[in-house]
């Protein structure tokens, strides 16, 4: 047993789509965003927060609750510093992203912030939580390979992590996976393997892989629960 070692809270920088998921998914009848706020150091780039707030429709009570929750804690919203903007601009010059489209703005500022924070020792590592597979493929993965700021997760990864760490029960984890797979805004790109397959087929593969992952985690959880 490694007695003196204690984990720090992980730093999670969240993108708009993921924030939408965290606002609607539930564990133990509690919104996932509340659990995440407890368990992680949560950060939202101002650009992302603005995008999230602008996207809230009149009827979307769940996202309104999240907005109010995030507003209460001003430590969460990260405003871009001059350095952040400079990093974002330089990464463009270095041709990490082909264009600076409005669509990728959130991800560009998230990754610039992560690089800045890790360099300044404010974060040891950071996790970018995003559902945007095309941004991941276009530049996020390459930037992480070059700057090692931490990790890139999707909400499905977050669910498996919470299942592993917080011992969330099987039904709750499976329900969260079902709801994410059922949600048409969850990208299936990663599971298409360049094949011309139907959307539901990609979702079946996605579901299959995530259920298998839960099964494996369950095995390891039982080893950890029983072992010294």
């Amino acid at each position, binding site marked *: 047993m490694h007695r003196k070692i204690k984990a720090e809270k992980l730093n999670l920088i969240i993108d708009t789509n993921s924030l939408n998921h965290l606002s609607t998914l539930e564990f133990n009848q509690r919104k996932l965003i509340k659990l995440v706020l407890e368990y992680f150091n949560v950060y939202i780039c101002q650009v992302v927060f603005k995008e999230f707030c602008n996207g809230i429709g009149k009827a979307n009570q769940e996202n309104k609750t999240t907005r109010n929750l995030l507003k209460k804690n001003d430590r969460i919203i990260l405003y871009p510093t001059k350095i952040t903007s400079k990093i974002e601009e330089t990464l463009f010059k270095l041709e990490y992203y082909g264009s600076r489209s409005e669509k990728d703005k959130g991800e560009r500022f998230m990754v610039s912030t992560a690089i800045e924070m890790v360099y300044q020792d404010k974060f040891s590592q950071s996790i970018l939580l995003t559902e945007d597979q095309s941004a991941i493929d276009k530049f996020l993965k390459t930037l992480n390979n070059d700057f090692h700021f931490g990790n890139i997760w999707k909400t499905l990864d977050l669910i498996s992590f919470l299942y592993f760490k917080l011992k969330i029960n099987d039904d709750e984890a*499976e*329900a969260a996976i*079902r*709801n994410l*797979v*059922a*949600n*048409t805004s969850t990208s299936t790109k990663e599971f298409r393997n360049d*094949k*011309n*397959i*139907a959307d*539901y*087929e*990609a*979702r*079946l*593969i996605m*579901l*299959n892989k995530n*259920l298998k992952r839960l099964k494996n985690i369950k095995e390891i959880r039982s080893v950890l629960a029983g072992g010294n």
Partner: protein
Amino acid sequence: MKKHSDFEKIGLRLNPFGVKPEMGSENLTWAGLKKVKGNFDSLIGNCLKAMETKVVLHMSRWGGGKTHTSFYYSNPKNLPSIGIDYPTPLNLFVVTPQEGEKASDEFYKKIIEGIRITYISESINTMRSNSENDRSSLGEIQNYCKSEDIGRILWLLGDPNPEIAYDASELIFLPKPTASLKKALKVRRGIESTSDKFVVISTLFKILSIYDGEKKLDTQRRIFLWLDEIESLIYYSTRYYKPFTQALRELIDMTPNQLTFFLNFSFAERDTISTLEFIIGKALSDRINEKIISEELDISGAIEYVGDLLKFFRASDFKETNEFYPFNKEALKIMFDNLENKLKEPLMPRIINKWCEKIITRAFEKSYFSLGKEIDENFMNQVSFRDEAMEDI
């Protein structure tokens, strides 16, 4: 797609490779896939002899012929011979609703519309006229559905007075009928909840297995309910899939006899079959009695499939001795080998149809047939097997 007249030029009555199956079409045949047909013939034969309700899961990859199978066996001419006479089954074909939120309502509506209100009215009327007295049939229906009001609404559907029957039919789709309508029909409520709707369906199945629009049947008939594309349940969030699958299970449990409920499921990769129980939920998967998998074909199976199709669609005055004309057998082998090994496409009927049609179309464009040729190895070797592009042919 080529015109019919073009297919006539190559000795075919119609395009054998028309991709979409059509319900009730006389041009729907069974080709190849002998093992699957054997399984279905035996299963359906057993169902026609037995009383008990059966739930059958039919699985294949996309384009494996599940919908086609449903339509094929919906035609009484295609049912297997079982050595005894039996009444023609009542066939109902429903596609799984795409939206989970209203799935139960939509399913109910499709079932009622599939049977047709007029036919329901006529059959209940037959039931009433065959009963010792009119009131006993009311009691019988109320006993079937364990509800005084739902039983009365269904009984009134068969009323000899068409206006009363029409008013009762309104209640079938009205969750909150007006007070005056309720008073006129002497019922306290309409068909309100999901549970009420499935009680209606189950009661109708019981009645329609004994009566049709004209007479009491000599022996009970089977109800074949085909639910297509159940993989769409993957788009249902937890909130919606549970009530829908539990309602389907209730329907099965409330209908212990005469129902054969076919569930058509398309899987992606082979190992995604294991997620099936998760997708349709334990409530429903626990009720499955039989599973039939339509496997992908091997090259000889694919050749047999194409041969059977061509034979069925062959024009009577066709003189050619090559049974695979407009292809030759070697050319088909080359095509299937390319689909399997180059395009990595599973050899399923839909894929085979798509490529056969594409290649015939291209041969027409090259005026190949007018030169008296058939699609041979030389032609096929010039085809660049890429997913969509065939410009190199």
